[in-house]
């Protein structure tokens, strides 16, 4: 499919939204621009998790581990004076991947519920280290004062408006990268493993190796969102490893529909909007969110569009 085809046919609807999001900052106040930046970052995080959950059938419950590692790396590098964005984000991705490489060795042996338990436990080990190693991570007070990076070409990312377009660009790059990765022979193999590991073994695929490499890819892409978040908020602390973060990413997949290209982004959009707008209306926003999550899972357990999909085939 040549590039031209991408913006025809099935991609008409998303490209309409792309244009809309470009005009967005001129229609809304800075607060909503900030919200959409958060949506982009969370969408990248959810997409990275979907490599595992949607495509390989590995339900990781500790995905915040790689997000947090890249976040702290960004924090330390920035406070040490490293201003260049590309250097920091590559290091963040590297560290995310490295952590995933180490955790993958421990987790990939297990299956299903045990895999969930181990990935959750591993992410909490990092939370414990970040919380307790005060001399380095400053514990719960975290690392404040992380300035916006430089990306060369003379663009200053301090105002949220520029950071908005920058994050949108990174989001598109990740979207295309994942589109290619998940439609490559490697991507097909992951989905084969999701459907039946024994059949893939019989065909001659080294199933463990593919799961392991998939796990590392998920860590690398999660590293991007971890670094971006710390640059956006200017702050990192143990909560970047939080259980709630890993679970929220899973909810985004369930809500938006895992295993699809735009599912994670839709889920991210809905959940980030829900959290921020609901808290604007009622003080009991956490109660409302809890009820919404339960209802959503009860009704659309295969994602919000599964209701339509079920109708189609």
């Amino acid at each position, binding site marked *: 499919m040549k590039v031209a085809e991408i913006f025809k046919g099935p991609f008409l609807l998303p490209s309409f939204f792309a244009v809309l999001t470009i005009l967005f900052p001129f229609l809304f106040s800075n607060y909503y621009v900030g919200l959409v930046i958060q949506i982009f970052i969370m969408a990248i995080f959810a997409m990275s998790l979907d490599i595992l*959950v949607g495509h390989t059938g590995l*339900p990781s*419950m500790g995905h915040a581990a790689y997000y947090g590692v890249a976040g702290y790396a960004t924090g330390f590098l920035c406070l040490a004076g490293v201003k260049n964005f590309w250097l920091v984000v590559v290091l963040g991705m590297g560290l995310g991947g490295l952590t995933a490489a180490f955790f993958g060795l*421990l*987790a990939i*042996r*297990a*299956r*299903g*519920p*045990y895999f*969930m*338990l*181990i990935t*959750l*436990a*591993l992410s*909490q*080990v990092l*939370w*414990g*280290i970040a*919380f*307790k*190693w*005060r*001399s380095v991570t400053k514990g719960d007070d975290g690392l404040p004062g992380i300035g916006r990076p430089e990306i060369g070409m003379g663009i200053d990312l301090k105002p949220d408006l520029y950071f908005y377009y920058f994050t949108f660009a990174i989001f598109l790059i990740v979207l295309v990268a994942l589109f290619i990765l998940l439609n490559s022979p490697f991507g097909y193999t992951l989905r084969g493993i999701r459907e039946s590991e024994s059949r893939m073994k019989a065909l001659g695929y080294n199933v463990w190796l593919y799961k392991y490499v998939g796990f590392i890819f998920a860590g690398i892409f999660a590293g991007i969102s971890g670094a971006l978040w710390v640059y956006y908020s200017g702050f990192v602390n143990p909560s970047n490893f939080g*259980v*709630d973060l890993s*679970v929220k990413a*899973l*909810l985004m997949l*369930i809500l938006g529909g895992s295993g699809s290209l735009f599912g994670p982004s839709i889920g991210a959009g809905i959940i980030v909007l829900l959290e921020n707008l609901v808290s604007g209306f009622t003080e*009991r926003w*956490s*109660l409302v*969110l*809890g*009820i919404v*999550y*339960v209802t959503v*899972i*009860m009704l659309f*357990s295969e994602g919000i569009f599964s209701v339509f999909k079920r109708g189609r085939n």
Partner: protein
Amino acid sequence: MAFWIIQILNGLSFSMLLFLVAAGFTLIFGLMKIINIAHGSFYLLSAYIGLTVLRATENFLLATIASSIAVVLVGIAMQSLFLRRFYMKELQQVLLTFGFVLIIADLCLWIWGGNPMALPKPSLFRGSIWIGSVVFPSYRLFVILVGVIIAVGLWIFQEKTKFGAIVRAGVDDEEMLRGSGINIQMVFVGVFGLGALLAGIGGMIGGPFVGVFPGVDISMLLLALVVVIIGGVGSLRGAFVGSLFVGLTDNFGKALFPELSLFTLFAPMAIILAIRPTGIFGKIEE
């Protein structure tokens, strides 16, 4: 010398509390293969209800009964009305329990407010006793006693009773159990209720010294997770050994090298995860 006795007793009292919370968590995971994120919420709810009843009646036993009944009902309702629909779908069940964490936590915040509170101790155990030259609160001995009694009770339940045998069979091979004609959903409701009861009693026992405050649900969940990973997933024996290990290490860690204390909890967990992912007594699920 008294220093060591005090520290061991401190550690033991915390271990028993951890056992109560971890035992329920590991039973639910062992049989139903789901990580019950809302397990800490049973602790939270039970402690708050217990506090209200205690303020009204000053009777610790009555408060424990009331809070336990409430928590068991919540547990059974959660399992039979919601989790049951997603049988064999672990991911959806776990995310459902996360929704319940938010609901229960915010309801408690709404009703009891955000100020951390401690349950008054039962009148019998308000004083302190002398051990050698140092004073030790008698309530903590009570906690150790309750923990041991419940541990023995659970052991008898698991080894000797029919329902206990069914649960053990389920933990070992749930498909086979289903095949043998036993109504698996009833077993799940029973186990979930039992898990809630244990965490609820933990809430009452922990109320006076750990206290109850927004956020205690997640910290209790994490502690249960550490205990279960170290002791072994799905086994009561593992939960007991794990809680002893965690309770004592945490206590001695804080006493001897405080700046590393939380880390002394997570380091052993990481090591055990590396060597044997399902813990000392857990079953390797390849």
